[in-house]
Structures are given as structure tokens and as C-alpha cells.
């Protein structure tokens, strides 16, 4: 197997990467701290990264804590996911104008923005690939998604310390990044050492390394990085066997256990907002006061809302239980029927950001154990 060249980057070399792309008309997006959480937003330099910070996560719990080193990527994932750029929370699909009693429709998405995603984790790459399939792989596609996706330069980062809620090893989507990147960085940080091993994953990535003139990494430098990545798999606090999740969930629609697992659910929809693969959206048609200009707007939606499944007279899923069931069965079971893979990438966000700490992994285990077959 041909081994890609590995490059050595000093920590502040990353600034050169950001500049490289900025000068080529890209916007750099990466992790940064805002309102005591690590989110994805525009960054100008490595100083915008959460240097020396880590995130403590548990069901319904998220706190930032200072590390005892100055790692750039010493945390896992926060409430944002990259879907906010590729599949924006609000997007105007068209404008329609009334003229002489008739109307015409105009496409308004002509911009051609280019993005660099900095610090994408393995689970997030899997999530992006899943959304690629949804928005770009069916009979009907979303041209806005495809355009944005084509304009992304993806700088991935290997996870070396899984978070408490992470279970990507169980979903087969991490912790190691194996594909889907333009550049893959692995951070090595010791008492006296701090550097990155960078590996190109595409022509554009190779071009960046070469143009910026980074030197190739030494064997021992690569070995240190590999050590950290290899050890990550042993550090998981959370795991679940997903082999029969698809069957178990679809065979248990009427299991009374659903009432129990959903009894705390507030249907707030946090899980669907933070989930990197959730794609449900709604279409709103609005008009200005004069009724001359109308717009069609696509917004993120959540299957937890009361009227998500509304049809003449009422909602199909009116109870909290049915809406929780819809989400969990979709994520871990029917998603596979629809798209050929599970909808869950094991990032743990839904567990962290649920205000009442509902745990999808624990719930699945309950169903697997449940002997009630109706």
C-alpha cells in the first residue's frame, strides 16, 4: 500500500495554512470558544482555537476545563456540527415577484463561497459523507448542498482522547480518520514537544503542503503520532454492540418500554439540532406586506415538533413517546433501510445536549435486553 508522504508542522505553521486559503478566497472555519462552549465559526489564526482547553461531557452536561498543556485540539465535539455550513439552518430557495397580475420565480443562490473546515473529526467526516448521500445521492438532489460541498477544503484532525459520551468505535466511524479529507493532522503534544503530522488526502492537500514548503516528517515523529492514535481506541468509556440494532428497533414499535425511555423527554429538539446527520427541514412560503414579493425559505426542522407530522385534523405523532420513538428508530434503524448505513456516527452530542440527559446508547441497550416481543 502506497504510503502518503507525511509532513511536519510546527504549531504556528497552521497559520500559514489559514493564510494560504484566505488568499485564495476561502473562509476559514474552525473550533473556537463562544459562550463557554467550543463552536465552529470563522477563525483568523491559531490563537482563535481553544488552545489549552478540553471539554467535560456527560449526559446533559458540558463544561470547558483548562488542560495542563497547550494542545490546539485537546477536546472533542461541541454543539455545532459542519452541517450548519453545508446545509444552512435558514436558506432562501427562491424569490417570486408579482408583475402585471402574473408571477415569476428567481433563483437567489448564486454565490460561490469557499470554505476551509479546520479540525474535522472522524465521526464528523462520516456525518458529512452521510449527508452527501442524502442530499447528493438520491433521485432528487439539493444543488445548494452540492455546490457548497464542492467548495470545501477539509482539514481533519485525528482524535486521541475520546470524550465521555463518544462511541464512534461502536458505530465504526472513528476515532481514526481514514478517508474523506484533503489534509489530515495529528497533534503530538508532550511536556517538551508540540508538533503536527500532516498527511495529504487529495491533490489540493498535496499542493498546499508543497507550496507552503513543509518538510517531510521523520520516522520517529510519525511513530509518536501513530502511538497516540492507536491508543485512542482503548480510552472509550462508552460502547454498544450495534449489529442487530436495525432489527431490534423495528421489531419493537409497540414495546411499552418506549413510554419509559421517553418519559423525561421535553421534545425540545436539541438532539436533532446538534446531531450532525439530522437533515429534516421545513419549507416556509412568506410574502411581503404588499403581497408583491414572495420567498420560499428552507429551515431546519425537528421530528420532535408537535406539527411535524400534521395532516388534516391532527398530527400522526401527537404523543411525546411517538416522537421520541420516531427519532431513535430513524437514527439507529430505518436510516439503514433508507440510505444503506446507520444515521448515527457515535459523536455523543445528543447525549451531552439533552437537557434531561436521555442517553440513546443506554436506551438501545434496554431494548436489546427487553424480552417483551409484541
Amino acid at each position, binding site marked *: 500500500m502506497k504510503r502518503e508522504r507525511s509532513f511536519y508542522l510546527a504549531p504556528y505553521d497552521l497559520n500559514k495554512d489559514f493564510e494560504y486559503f484566505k488568499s485564495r478566497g476561502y473562509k476559514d472555519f474552525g473550533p473556537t470558544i463562544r459562550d463557554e462552549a467550543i463552536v465552529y465559526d470563522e477563525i483568523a489564526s491559531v490563537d482563535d482555537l481553544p488552545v489549552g482547553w478540553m471539554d467535560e461531557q456527560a449526559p446533559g452536561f458540558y463544561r470547558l476545563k483548562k488542560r495542563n498543556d497547550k494542545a490546539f485540539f485537546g477536546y472533542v465535539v461541541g454543539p455545532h456540527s459542519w452541517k450548519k455550513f453545508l446545509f444552512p439552518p435558514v436558506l432562501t*430557495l*427562491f424569490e*417570486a415577484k*408579482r408583475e402585471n397580475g*402574473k*408571477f*415569476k*420565480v*428567481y*433563483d437567489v443562490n448564486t454565490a460561490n463561497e469557499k470554505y476551509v473546515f479546520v479540525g474535522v473529526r472522524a465521526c464528523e467526516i462520516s456525518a458529512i459523507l452521510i449527508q452527501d448521500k*442524502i*442530499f447528493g445521492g*438520491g*433521485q*432528487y*438532489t*439539493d*444543488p445548494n448542498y452540492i455546490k457548497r460541498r464542492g467548495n470545501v477544503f477539509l482539514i481533519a484532525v485525528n482524535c486521541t482522547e475520546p470524550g465521555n459520551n463518544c462511541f464512534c468505535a461502536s458505530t465504526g466511524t472513528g476515532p481514526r480518520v481514514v478517508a474523506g479529507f484533503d489534509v489530515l493532522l495529528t497533534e503530538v503534544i508532550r511536556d517538551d514537544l508540540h508538533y503536527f503530522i500532516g498527511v495529504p488526502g487529495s491533490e489540493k492537500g498535496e499542493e498546499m503542503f508543497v507550496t507552503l514548503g513543509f518538510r517531510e516528517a521523520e520516522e520517529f515523529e510519525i511513530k509518536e503520532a501513530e502511538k497516540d492514535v492507536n491508543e485512542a481506541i482503548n480510552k472509550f468509556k462508552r460502547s454498544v454492540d450495534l449489529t442487530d440494532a436495525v432489527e431490534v428497533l*423495528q421489531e419493537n*414499535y*409497540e414495546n411499552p418500554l418506549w413510554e419509559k425511555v421517553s418519559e423525561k423527554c421535553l421534545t425540545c429538539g436539541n438532539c436533532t439540532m446538534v446531531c450532525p446527520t439530522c*437533515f*429534516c*427541514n*421545513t*419549507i*416556509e*412560503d*412568506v*410574502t411581503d406586506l404588499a*403581497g408583491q414579493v*414572495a420567498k*420560499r425559505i*428552507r429551515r431546519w*426542522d425537528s*421530528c420532535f415538533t408537535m*406539527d*411535524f*407530522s*400534521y*395532516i*388534516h385534523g391532527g398530527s*400522526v*405523532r*401527537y*404523543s411525546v*413517546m*411517538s416522537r421520541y*420513538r*420516531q427519532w431513535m*428508530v*430513524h437514527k439507529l*434503524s*430505518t436510516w439503514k*433501510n*433508507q440510505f444503506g448505513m446507520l444515521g448515527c456516527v457515535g459523536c455523543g452530542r445528543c447525549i451531552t445536549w439533552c437537557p434531561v440527559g436521555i442517553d440513546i446508547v443506554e436506551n438501545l441497550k434496554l431494548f436489546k435486553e427487553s424480552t417483551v416481543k409484541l
Partner: protein
Amino acid sequence: MEVSEREILVVEKNPMLPQIFQIRSRKQETSDTFTLELEPVEAGVEFIFKPGQFNMLYVFGVGEVPISISGDPEKVSRVTHTTRMVGTVTKAMGKLKKGDLIGVRGPFGSSWPVDKCSGCDVVIVAGGIGLAPLRPAIYYILRRRENYNKAILLYGARTPDDILYKHEIEKWKSRFDFEVYVTVDRGTSGWKGNVGVVTTLIPRAPFDPQNTIAFVCGPEIMMRFTALELIKRGVSENNIFISMERNMKCGIGLCGHCQFGPVFVCKDGPVFSYSQVKNLIFKREI
């Protein structure tokens, strides 16, 4: 009407952008149901669809709804929809007049398998406005009448005033090769026809269960009971087809609203075989 090419959007590039159609005729069918005949504003454009498919119809500034196509698939210059006024958009649509414009996206969805068998009996069971998405199948079948053995329509409406396509039903009744039975849930004075739910017409309908395909459309409860009656008579679950309905926002399988278990009603349906849905259709809140 004069419209510049640059401004009309080509639907193939973006399935969320509607094509503009003009209302060519409007007919009030019952107190709350009306039929619109639409024609593309762009000259020379044909609208081709299969019986059972639907369009997403857009009323300027108000919204978009999925409406089954209820016209003749052979007539490609126009597309017809029969709509019931139940919500904001359909009520606004009901106020539109001949000459007004409507946005159209489609046709979407699966269709009635009208070619599934040759020489079989075809039984069409319609409840209420369920007759609308079945009408294109009826046209198709009557055009190729020799491909089928018996053709039977069982139609249930709420009251005699709610019967759709009254003239057409009379015409169909007068055909010797099409057996049409109409019943109402509630008779009114002067109604000399059947009274009772449409499922009561099934035990005596003259079809051979071993050689029958059935197309059923109406409220979900009606479709469930109809399917059970057909199965009771010996029709195979694989030969019973229903048309499902769920909340739809995009019509193209990308918004998630119309999911029914593992399927999207907008793209895996709305027409399903009974065997495909029987496991979920009796479960609540799926």
C-alpha cells in the same frame, strides 16, 4: 403571455423551484371540493405523469401542498387536480380563477401498477376524495379495456351531494364493460341508491379473487378495512394497492416529514402494495 427565458427557471436543475402553470378551467365539484385544469405557461411543454402521482402546487406567497393528479394521463398538454379546501393553502387555491398562475413541481411519487397483470379483474375502491387519484387509473384502464377481464369501481361518498365527477360516473355506469357501484354513508331525500360504507360492497362485488388486482384510495381507516375485506375474499396482499398520505414539505425525499417507518411516502409511495405496509399500518403514531 410573454415571459423571458432567463427568468423562468429550469426545473431539472433544481427540483425545489416550481414551473409556472396557468389555470385553464375551474369547476366546483362539491361544496368544498374543486377541480383545476392547468396548462404550462411555457409553450410547447408537455406534462407527463403516471396514474397515482402527485404534484406540489404553489399558491403565490401562501404556500405549497401535495395534490394528487386527477386527470387523464393521455392528455399531456394539461394537468388536472381535484382539491378539497381543508387548510390555508387549499382555501387560497380555491379562490383562484381561470387565468391565475400556480407553481407546479412534479410529478412525484410511485404510481398505480396498472400494467401489473393482463387479463385480470381490476377492482377500484374509492372513498371520498380518494376517487381523485384513482381517476387517472380509470382512464388508463378504460383506454386499454381489452387488457383486463372485469373492471369494477366501488365508490363511497359521505352523502349524495359529496359524490365527485357525477356526470362522469353516469357515463361510466352506462358502459357495459365497467361495473360501477356507488354508496353513501348517509342518504338524503331522493337518493335511491345504496346507503352504507363502501366496504359493504366488497363481499358481493363480482370479481374473481384469485385473479384480481385492487387499487384502494381514501381515508386510512377506510383503506385498512377495505384491504381486510378484500383479503377475506381471497385477494392476495401483493395485489392490493393503497395510496398513503403524510405531511409533505418538499415532495422529493429530502425534508423528512413524510416518513412512515422506513419509507418516504413522497418517493417510495404514495402508492404501496398492502404487503409493504401491513406491518405498520395497524400500529399507532408511526
